[in-house]
């Protein structure tokens, strides 16, 4: 597949996303012409792009959808539930064609036949009194509202290099109505100067259409920069049937139409004068509007950059940060005021560059929310429950890779809520709740973390049921005393599933343990809170980015470690004797008892222990737990590098980072350190 095609596929994916968004809104607000317009435009873009890049199937299919929404636009059809359903399914249909690189498998083809029938039914349902043959035919046969235009299309020589075949443009233009066209070959150079993929010919066309000037402009929507288009209105009526016009409309290639004569004959001159004056005034407005529309769109969408380029930028920034650390070290060792000053200002710039570069990789959670709206809509209908889905803070931004990693666990959480959490309307009424259930997805920043919480107002989780199930499954002993939190944590254990029956909604055999694993894959944590008959909240906490962290550089024996600053609460210096004397790994500091882990021992590091050591209090859920290291070197911006496949067992380290002197420091995941050594010591 060539470059343009893959670009189209990418863009088409975005368009489908926009389409779903527009449909969901249209569902709430069926009379909104702006939404119908935007759906029409999306279909048009898909059709145009599909045709241009050789995805005929997509182009053909979207053509029908485009027609349907064109009729809605013209108020000949009303938006119905069935129409929305068909469009939703069409979006899926187009997606599956896109996934197959635009080709049709048998299953897809069969689906298309069914969808076509439904579309035809919708179109015919309205045409009973109207006797509409087909929208295209309707367009040419109706003379009411027909206007005649002169269109000159002069493609630039490079147009084909962008994958555009100018003939398609002319074809599409001709499809708008009755027309006559001239081709101009005069620009074709000598054979030796001829470049095979350059375009030298141009066209002019007299076109009678009822679609208006915008439809003509839409044809050139993709090639605005690649050709010169002049559109001039000749008359407010169809001039083709006019007497004596025929000789003027004879196609003589390389000889332009005699516009003046045509115009005067059309008798439109006076009308045109009037129209021109009006138009001049209108054009000022319309022009403004056009500009406004375009600048608005471009300021929202920004530019599209290949993700490899971003990855490359991130790598360079990472290297810069590492080199910066080397410079800092050198400057520290060479006490020169000038050098220190330069190093500091350079560090300031690197830091800003780092932050800016990272913000590029962030995308809003909204990207996922559209998909979830669709999921909630479809699933709630499937299980016959009315559910309102509310997304708050969808503008919260997250690293691209994190967003990708979140999709599956969140999907699973939502499925659970729909399937098990929310009760049926009858049950809800009996409990005195509103009949429609509610699922709220909320995203917000909290320090260096992003919190995503999914709350439903369903029946909540039954602690006793969870406990009993865990006993049944042999996950806990019957006589174990567990706190509420500990019981809730049981649902994250592998082999635990509260639903007795397997449904295709909450999936087969996969449970919350998968959610937990997927979330930890992206260094996040999951927790749950629930209230009987009030609902359940599942909270996911994630680091902001994956690749650079602000850390504290510490040392044990001759190895450097990095602890993320975000987890550090306080640091105390302690005498080794005090640690030696402590009982059961509990230390008393300033009157408070803290549990702690002595990393030298836990890591099996031998050698002489220093007299004074540092105890770092790290946050662990709502507790503070001490981690003892030899020495604190200072704050450090760590570029996280993976430890690689061979060290995947060693998950107490979230990665490594290269220090200024070229040696490697290991980045500690304190949460995992505490988990692992707690388990180890318990056994």
């Amino acid at each position: 597949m060539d470059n343009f095609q893959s670009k189209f596929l990418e863009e088409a994916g975005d368009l489908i996303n926009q389409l779903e968004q527009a449909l969901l809104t249209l569902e709430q607000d069926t009379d909104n012409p702006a939404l119908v317009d935007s759906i029409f435009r999306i279909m048009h873009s898909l059709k145009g792009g599909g045709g241009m890049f050789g995805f005929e199937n997509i182009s053909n299919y979207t053509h029908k959808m485009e027609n349907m929404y064109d009729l809605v636009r013209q108020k000949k059809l009303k938006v119905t539930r069935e129409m929305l359903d068909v469009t939703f399914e069409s979006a899926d249909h187009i997606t599956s064609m896109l996934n197959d690189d635009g080709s049709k498998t048998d299953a897809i083809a069969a689906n298309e036949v069914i969808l076509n029938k439904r579309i035809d039914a919708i179109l015919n349902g309205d045409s009973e009194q109207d006797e509409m043959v087909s929208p295209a035919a309707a367009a040419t046969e109706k003379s009411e509202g027909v206007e005649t235009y002169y269109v000159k299309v002069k493609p630039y020589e490079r147009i084909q290099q962008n994958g555009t075949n100018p003939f398609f443009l002319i074809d599409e233009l001709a499809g708008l109505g009755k027309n006559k066209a001239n081709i101009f070959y005069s620009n074709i150079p000598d054979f030796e100067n001829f470049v095979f993929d350059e375009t030298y010919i141009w066209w002019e066309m007299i076109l009678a259409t009822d679609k208006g000037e915008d439809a003509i402009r839409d044809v050139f929507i993709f090639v605005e920069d690649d050709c010169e288009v002049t559109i001039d209105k000749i008359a407010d009526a169809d001039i083709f049937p006019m007497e004596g016009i025929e000789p003027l409309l004879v196609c003589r290639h390389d000889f332009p139409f005699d516009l003046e004569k045509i115009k005067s004959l059309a008798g439109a001159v006076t009308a045109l004068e009037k129209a021109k004056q009006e138009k001049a005034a209108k054009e000022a407005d319309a022009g403004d509007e056009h500009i406004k529309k375009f600048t608005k769109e471009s300021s929202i969408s920004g530019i599209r950059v290949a993700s490899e380029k971003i990855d490359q930028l991130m790598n360079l920034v990472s290297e810069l940060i590492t080199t910066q650390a080397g410079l800092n070290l050198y400057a520290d060792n060479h006490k020169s005021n000038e050098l220190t000053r330069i190093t500091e200002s350079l560090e300031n710039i690197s830091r800003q560059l780092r932050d800016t570069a990272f913000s590029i990789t962030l995308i809003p959670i909204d990207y996922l929310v559209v998909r979830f709206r669709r999921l909630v809509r479809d699933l709630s209908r499937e299980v016959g429950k009315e559910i309102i889905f509310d997304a708050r803070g969808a503008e919260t931004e997250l690293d691209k890779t994190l967003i990708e990693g979140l999709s599956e666990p969140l999907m699973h959480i939502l499925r659970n809520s729909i399937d098990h959490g929310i009760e049926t309307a009858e049950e809800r009424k009996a409990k005195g709740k509103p009949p429609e259930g509610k699922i709220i997805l909320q995203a917000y920043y909290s320090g260096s973390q992003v919190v995503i919480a999914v709350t439903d107002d369903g029946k909540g989780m039954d602690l006793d049921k969870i406990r009993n199930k865990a006993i049944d499954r042999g996950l806990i002993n019957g006589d174990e005393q567990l706190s509420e939190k500990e019981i809730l944590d049981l649902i994250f254990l592998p082999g635990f599933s509260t639903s007795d029956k397997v449904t295709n909604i909450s999936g087969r055999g996969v449970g919350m343990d998968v959610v937990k694993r997927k979330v930890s894959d992206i260094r996040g944590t999951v927790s749950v809170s629930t209230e009987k008959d009030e609902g359940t909240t599942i909270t996911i906490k994630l680091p902001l980015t994956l690749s650079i962290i602000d850390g504290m550089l510490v040392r044990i024996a001759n190895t450097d470690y990095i602890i993320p600053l975000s987890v550090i609460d306080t640091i105390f210096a302690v005498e080794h004797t005090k640690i030696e004397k402590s009982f059961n790994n509990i230390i008393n500091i300033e009157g408070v008892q803290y549990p702690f882990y002595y990393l030298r021992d836990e890591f099996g590091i031998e050698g002489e222990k220093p007299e004074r050591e540092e105890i770092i209090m790290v946050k662990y859920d709502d507790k503070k737990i001490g981690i003892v290291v030899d020495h604190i070197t200072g704050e450090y911006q760590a570029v996280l590098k993976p430890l690689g496949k061979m060290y995947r067992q060693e998950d107490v380290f979230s990665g490594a980072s290269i220090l200024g002197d070229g040696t490697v420091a290991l980045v500690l995941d304190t949460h995992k350190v505490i988990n692992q050594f707690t388990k180890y010591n318990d056994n």
Partner: protein
Amino acid sequence: MDQEIDSFISFKLGEEYFAISVSKVLNILQLVQITKVPTAPEYMKGVINLRGTVLPIIDIRMKFGMDPIQYQRDTVILVLNVQIENENVDAGILVDSVKEVFEIKKEEVLPPPGIGSKYKSKFVDGIYKMSDDRFVMLLDIDKIFSSDEMVMLKETADSEESANAQQIE
């Protein structure tokens, strides 16, 4: 007849000679400071910085059931590209010394000995007799990296070295 010529690089572990196809070797590095990764198995010596990426270092001697490596003047790191579970992974192995790069014709390679061999035949592609009559073991390094097994056969555990191998297991 198959006239294919392969290049191999030979190295020493203890007193024995082994060789790996040159196509697997990315680089030969002088010994640098290795950052040990606590909690990892003993034969995984740690990681080093190889031009900005983190490279795991393996004490291949221990994988062969020999004593852990003693760093000496000739000790080097062979940086290899190995396939583990269909994934290409870069890793360094510590060897006592690198000997030479040599070319051999495929037809000159002897099949790995079955019975009576000190090493498991699945890790050995073949045996080659050098010009000075020494034998060198041509290793299948992908298999060695993919397997948790020791390369040395336990049944022949009569030497001091293989006794160590059992301790490690």
